[in-house]
């Protein structure tokens, strides 16, 4: 009975791992192919099935004029928008989360939980519902197709995540911590800045990771609200898809776009295994 269970367990884990890794392996293999080895028949292993070439990777850094893809600029745009929006969301979200965790708010029938719910409920909003008014709004004030316009929209996407994670985290930081600081003569701001914040670094990192993930993976807003001046990475890669399917450069650019966040997986796992995530995610 026990042996059977162990056997099934490892079978399931192995199958799932294969399922997860399969598209990556396929993309890695495809990125080294040329026209012949993509279009004649399905090939898998370099040297054995086909002669590998670096063409797919080379076009990534060529300028469009010479038939390249040029994903360098979209790459930096994506990094800039994601990091700026994450940073603003974390700062504002952490402040709000601290207030919601430590103080009591009352306004009519509105209580702390309702305010927290208001923040988090913004995730319910489908991107399409926001993108039509934003499209008209940003074009009116001339911010369509600009980095600033995207950062504003991404704050709406990311702040709910920051508040969600930080409220739970602060609820687990003992209240005595700030109370002691207050008795020692700190004002509430100093207590927050000098005592609570340094003790909340794991929570801040987890919240930051989640903001970066959800900012980096967004496609729809970037797709609707930018055209030519500013291009983000996902939009650029998907644009490749519509042309005559150069699968090799498509795979290479896809791999290079998802690569940085794979590191995030290691960081998240680290905090998960140390037990820091359990309070932060509930």
């Amino acid at each position, binding site marked *: 009975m026990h042996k059977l269970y162990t056997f099934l*367990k490892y079978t399931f*884990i192995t199958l*799932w*791992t294969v399922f*997860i890794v*399969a*598209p990556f392996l*396929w*993309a890695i293999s495809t990125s080294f192919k040329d026209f012949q080895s993509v279009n004649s*028949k*399905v090939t*898998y292993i370099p040297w054995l099935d086909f002669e590998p070439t670096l063409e797919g990777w080379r076009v990534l850094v060529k300028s469009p004029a010479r038939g390249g893809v040029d994903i360098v600029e979209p790459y930096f745009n994506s990094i800039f928008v994601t990091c700026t929006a994450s940073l603003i969301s974390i700062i*504002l979200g952490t*402040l*709000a989360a*601290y*207030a*919601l965790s430590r*103080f009591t708010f009352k306004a009519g029938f509105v209580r702390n939980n309702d305010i927290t719910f208001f*923040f988090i409920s*913004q*995730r319910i909003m*489908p*991107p*399409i*519902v*926001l*993108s*039509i*008014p*934003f499209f008209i*709004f940003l074009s009116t004030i001339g911010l369509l197709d600009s980095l600033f316009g995207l950062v504003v929209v991404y704050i*709406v996407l990311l*702040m709910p995540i920051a508040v969600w994670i930080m409220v739970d985290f602060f609820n687990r930081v003992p209240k005595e911590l700030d*109370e002691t600081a207050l008795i020692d003569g700190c*004002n509430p701001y100093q207590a927050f800045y000098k005592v609570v914040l340094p003790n909340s670094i794991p929570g801040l990192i987890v919240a930051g990771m989640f903001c970066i*993930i959800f900012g980096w*993976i967004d*496609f*729809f807003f970037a797709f609707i609200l930018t055209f030519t001046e500013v291009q983000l990475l*996902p939009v650029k*890669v*998907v644009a490749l*898809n519509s042309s005559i*399917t150069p699968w090799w450069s498509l*795979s290479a650019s*896809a791999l290079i*776009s*998802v690569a940085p966040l*794979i590191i995030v*997986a*290691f960081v998240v796992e680290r905090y*998960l*295994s140390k*037990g820091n*995530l*359990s*309070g*932060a995610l*509930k």
Partner: protein
Amino acid sequence: MNFKHKFVFLFPGLFVLIGILIFPIIFTIRLSLSGWNSYTPEMNFIGITNYIRLFTDDPRFWESFFRLSFLSVTTVILQYVIGFALALMVWREIKFKRFFRVIFLIPMMTTPVIMTVIWRTFFHESLGPVNDLLGNIGIKPILWLSDPVIAKFTVIIVEVWQWTPFMFLLLLAGLLSLPKEPFLAAAIDGASPFRKFVYVTFPLMAPISIGAIIIRLIEASKIMDTVFVLTSGGPGTATETSSFYIYIKGLREFQMGYAATLSFTYLVIMIISLTIIAKVLTKLMIKE
């Protein structure tokens, strides 16, 4: 602790969020009462004409909504079952525990549209590896993307791949935070692993499960990127979801007024149905 300072902490975030959102919401409601389209791009007032059209003369929207419900409920159930199973498996000591944990997390870190581009080549009906490998064991090519029924399942496969890790993460974080005592008690009573799961683990995990399911349902209801790249709603309208239909009406056909009507109705339906689902799940899973 009660200070006037508390507002200093809360208000920046609250007002930035309200400030960014208030305009789009009011604007959407106003727009939904107008006939803004590519011929008359102006904010005229046509009353509830758009709403009448939606409720009497637009089966395509309702079909897309039921399709969305089917897709999101199916994917979330699959993600919950698989995610919970995976979390249980790497919860306690196994070989290469941390390696598997990282592997299981990776898909959620990847951009859905970009991975979907890869999946599109993966499921390509003549040049993709899936049909080729199936062909090797004598199975006829499957029309992954061009058969109306199978295309739905292709979308489900991709969604399960992409988002099971999120469910896994939430559930594993929950498992790791459980108190030890109930498990010790169960071990002393000599409970079998199965009974331990049914009577100890599952009830303790119920609140976390509900949270995770609701969060995933919220995210799954926005399913759009995958469909957009994988099938573009096709073949025909076989994989068209509400968001995608609103996108077609609004930003392809430029019927902004009508698209706003769809958006607002859709948002109201979503909020109501998610509230009901949350209530029902709480009733079902937490027995007093």
